[in-house]
């Protein structure tokens, strides 16, 4: 396990360095003169020239790149043009909201995905199986932004069951910020009114995101359950006289969950990207919306910093999934046992 961990961490290091290169490249192709953005459109030529030297834009590309890396290592992502604050502060401000949304979405995806997958496997080729297959296919085929609009139209504008877009009713006061996740913070502050309202606000966007993640989970749960159900020990359990329900719950499900857990991890990573469109629709003040605004206004530092953070967290999630898989499946680490 140790060797495998080292090898994986080294790969992660290379990947993060590569992410830095890609984002640097990204900042080069942006059709925007960063000097004009800093100096303002009416600045005289000599001011622009002085700024060019000051910010090092007169240096060759590789020097600029190393300066960029140097700043990165110090945690300096520059200042966002749209908020006027350091990008890192913005990210710390907005990321918990995304994390909160993705977590609720994950609960929904798991809560419906696993039972759906297991039932499809147990009642294979039944109406339920086909139905769940169609539901999950529709889930992955649905444009996230469109589903968001439709659900908002129905549940907010027409039925009025769920609150308006946003994270919290404007009449309510946010609990003291500890984690930045409203539901966690309000639970800590024992402020159940805020907790309930935050939950209600999260239901629609989280459903949209969750449906996006449900398909993969249901599919894996179904196929691994089918695998498990054809094993000898399941037959043994049946012969032993256990009820079908107990066979599935005690002997089938735990074994079928291993691949499913892996899929859940991967889905968590992909929810990060689904969040970009979902947050835009639901005015959810998370990293996704921050990034979208940055992209649309060509807020260079925010684009570079935000994209980098998303890529790094995505890689981290994938690493965790790999490690978990290696832990659950010793064959993988054995391959690295010799170093």
């Amino acid at each position: 396990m140790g060797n495998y961990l080292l090898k994986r961490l080294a790969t992660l290091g290379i990947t993060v360095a590569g992410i830095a290169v890609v984002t640097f490249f990204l900042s080069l192709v942006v059709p925007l003169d960063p000097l004009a953005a800093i100096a303002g459109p009416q600045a005289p030529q000599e001011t622009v020239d002085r700024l060019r030297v000051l910010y090092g834009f007169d240096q060759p590309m590789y020097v600029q790149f190393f300066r960029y890396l140097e700043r990165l290592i110090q945690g300096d992502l520059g200042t966002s043009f749209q908020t006027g604050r350091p990008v890192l502060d913005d990210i710390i401000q907005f990321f918990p909201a995304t994390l909160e949304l993705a977590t609720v979405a994950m609960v929904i995806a798991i809560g419906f995905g696993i039972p759906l997958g297991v039932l499809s496997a147990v009642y294979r080729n039944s109406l339920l199986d086909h139905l769940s297959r169609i539901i999950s296919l529709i889930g992955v085929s649905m444009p996230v932004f469109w589903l968001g609009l439709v659900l908002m139209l129905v549940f907010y504008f027409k039925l009025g069951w769920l609150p308006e877009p946003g994270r919290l009713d404007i009449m309510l006061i946010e609990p003291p910020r500890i984690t930045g996740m409203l539901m966690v913070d309000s639970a800590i502050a024992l402020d159940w009114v805020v907790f309930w309202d935050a939950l209600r606000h999260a239901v629609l966007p989280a459903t949209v995101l969750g449906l996006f993640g449900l398909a993969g989970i249901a599919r894996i749960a179904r196929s691994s359950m089918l695998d498990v159900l054809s094993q000898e020990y399941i037959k043994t359990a049946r012969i032993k006289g256990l009820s079908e329900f107990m066979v599935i719950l005690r002997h089938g499900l735990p074994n079928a969950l291993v691949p499913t857990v892996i899929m859940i991890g991967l889905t968590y990573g992909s929810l990060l990207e689904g969040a970009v469109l979902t947050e835009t629709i639901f005015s959810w003040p998370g990293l996704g919306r921050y990034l979208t605004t940055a992209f649309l206004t060509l807020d260079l530092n925010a684009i570079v910093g935000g994209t980098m953070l998303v890529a790094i967290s995505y890689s981290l999630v994938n690493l965790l999934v790999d490690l978990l898989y290696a832990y659950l499946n010793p064959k993988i680490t054995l391959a690295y046992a010799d170093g």
Partner: protein
Amino acid sequence: MAEITAKDALNHDEIRRLRLDARRRYLRDSYVLWRRNPITVVGTLIILTLLLIAAAAPLLATHDPYNQILAERLLPPSADYWFGSDNLGRDIYSRVIHGSRLTLMIAILVAITSGPLGLMIGVVAGYLGGAVDEILMRVADIFLAFPKLILAIAFAAALGAGLENAILAIAIANWPGYARLARAETLAVRNSDYIQAIRVLGAGRLRIMFLHVTPMCLSTLIVRVSLDMGAIILIAAGLGFLGLGAQPPSPEWGLMVSDGRNYIVDQWWVSTLPGTAILIVVLGFNLVGDGLRDILDPHQRQS
């Protein structure tokens, strides 16, 4: 053809006949599997309909998709405006019909740029191995470290909003998966006897890679690209929705959904109908993809 003797094995006509036979049987089995699954049939029908609509768009459209009649803006669906009219008084039905061409064009262009690019990189990496392989695959890994949609948005924004740049951006986000696939296929065949034989005959590396290895990777890659079609269309629509893809007045579906956002409460049709078109088309591709997985699955074939 009870038993194949050594004499038969040398008989070219016989070999050709057997091979043709096997191929025909494979196709027939595929057809049976395709027919057996109603989901796949529905998906195929959706894609065929899309192709027909795109081909006959000017005939099917009832209005000029760009013609604005401001006096008739935001009209509900009616006999004249089948899907209603949008905020600039354009016929939504005609725009959806014409939009099918854009959707198809985007999907095809992304497929024929990122597919061959990934194929080439994967074959080169897999065949040459060593440092070349290591470098190319690290680069692919770095691109895979970004969620696809975010990478596509980032490049679309950086290159400047527009349809061509959006296509390029999606292709940039898409190739690494194909490269990995092609590399794996290449590794599987690179040491096989027939490649050794060609090498002994004196074929150069380029010749082996592109005339002998590439064709072996092709079928897997085509399957994979067709499985990705739905996802490509979704990303393109997402870019259009964010204003980073096709630009107005183009009748791109994602853009149309975004146009109708402000009217969602009272004029639901402006946004929801083009969105339904995206859903149906993507679903079509995914249904076929899902069936394709079964058809190509050797386990299913045996039964």
